[in-house]
């Protein structure tokens, strides 16, 4: 899946997720979940990575599912879990199987305004830098005996956390000017362009078609066209 054009992946997954989010018939929701799991299995994204990322989204999914289960019955509770999981898994596969720059360039070529796509690229670049900076600062903080504060009443702890965040801003803004100069040196002119402008290949079109057919079938059954 890594070789597919980012535009094809974005279109396919967005269509599928949009349709899956609208399903209310339990059988169709489980069909969507099964398709999402199959999609994940064929994506070559390591299962461990996907499970770890899914675990991050699980608390919100569970709160919603348990609430629906308590107030509207077990079928709807399970339906809520399956529907949100189907969407989250498909989205996680898209996020994991697409290189960041390709994804942003794909969005730009799909018509996202250049200010947003350029900011996406620059922001992502700085996030990587600043996250490294933060890890170093956290290690230094820990070495000096700070372990994250105790509660909201621990004013000293909150002050240290606030100063850490402030320091990240200050250190990174120094780099921003230099980073911008570096970009200008390499011919940056306010727009995000990839080195190679690929065209949609047969495999990309097949990928979109597969998702279109599957999503079309799901929504047709949902609307009761064959009932």
């Amino acid at each position: 899946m890594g070789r597919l054009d980012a535009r094809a992946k974005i279109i396919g997954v967005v269509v599928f997720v949009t349709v899956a989010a609208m399903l209310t018939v339990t059988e169709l929701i489980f069909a969507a979940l099964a398709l999402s799991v199959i999609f994940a299995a064929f994506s070559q994204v390591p299962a461990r990575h996907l499970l770890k990322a899914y675990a991050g989204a699980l608390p919100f999914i569970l709160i919603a599912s348990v609430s629906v289960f308590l107030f509207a019955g077990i079928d709807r509770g399970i339906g809520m879990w399956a529907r949100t999981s189907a969407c989250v898994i498909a989205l996680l596969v898209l996020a994991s199987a697409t290189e960041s720059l390709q994804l942003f360039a794909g969005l730009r070529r799909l018509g996202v305004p250049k200010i947003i796509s350029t900011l996406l690229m620059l922001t992502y670049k700085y996030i990587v830098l600043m996250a490294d900076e933060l890890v170093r600062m956290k290690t230094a903080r820990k070495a000096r005996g700070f372990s994250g504060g105790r509660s909201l009443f621990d004013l000293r702890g909150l002050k240290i956390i606030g100063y850490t965040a402030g320091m990240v801003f200050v250190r990174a803004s120094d780099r921003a000017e230099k980073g911008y100069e570096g970009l200008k040196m390499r011919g940056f002119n306010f727009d995000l362009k990839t080195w190679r402008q690929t065209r949609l290949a047969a495999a990309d079109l097949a990928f979109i078609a597969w998702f279109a057919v599957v999503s079309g079938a799901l929504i047709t059954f949902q609307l009761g066209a064959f009932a």
Partner: protein
Amino acid sequence: MHIPDGLMDPMVSAIGWIEFMVVIAVALLISGKKFKEKDLPRIAVLSAGIFVAQMLNFPIGGGTTGHLVGAALFAIMAGPVIAMVGMTVILVIQALMFGDGGITAFGLNATNMAIIAPLTGWGVYTLVKPFLAGLKTETKHGKMNLGTAIAIGVGAWASVFVSASACAAEMAVSYAISGGAYGIAATVSIPAMLGYHVIIAIGEAMITVAVAAYVLSVSPNAFRSISEKNVAVPGLKGIMSSKIAHATVAVLIVFALALPLYFMYSSEGADGLEKTMEDAGVDEGDAVLTSPFEYGETYFAALFAGILGFVATALVGLGLMNIFKIGRAAE
């Protein structure tokens, strides 16, 4: 607060998308005129900084933690329009690179965290600051006085609380209009979200003040909106270009965004007092004084009534400030 796909009723998700698209299109139009190419790295650094700051967990107590949202900090540091664009970029990265927040729910997530949160944070900070201008006591950090620190804290608290309230209301409306197929029941979503976020928002306020104090003392140029002075322009143009007027518009936009949900959720039934009177068999008498205005039964009528009420309240507030000379000391 990141809503995943499949949780919300499609109608509520669609409203979220429409609201977000309209507001961000206007923000991009304004920012397109304001931005210069060399501003982009600064905005990107701020966006990345907020993203990374969201990775810093703060303790709440009992072993639980919360994390910074940062929308108010962003808006106070860079202004609300840049904050809206920057927060949108953060949310796109979170949704597409980390699967945090959905695609169909992106409109709602962006409305809550990229529009309502920065507008509320900046609006409340700007409206509250003149009232606290008399508090000139310097904090330990030298460059920030107590009044500014309190205004930043109140703005940050309000931004998290109001955006969490919007999120809870969206879940409750989804549940109500879908008959339980989507969303979370109001009896769960509202106390859970508001109860948790009223405390998270305190942490947000304290950390935002600490970050602002640090950045202001080390790199004051980073805070354009704090260091900017209001230039007095006479007449209507002066009123329209004042920060108070802009903050009033910001709060009104938040109100306008909340109205469609209100109409989807509002009940035709009697309120508490009317029901009690009905049960007791007491009829409502003729009013001694009647207003020429009503709250309105359509979106635009209610919006008009809200704007009218808000502007009237703001004018009374400004009049009182003028009478008691509040805020003049700050200029």
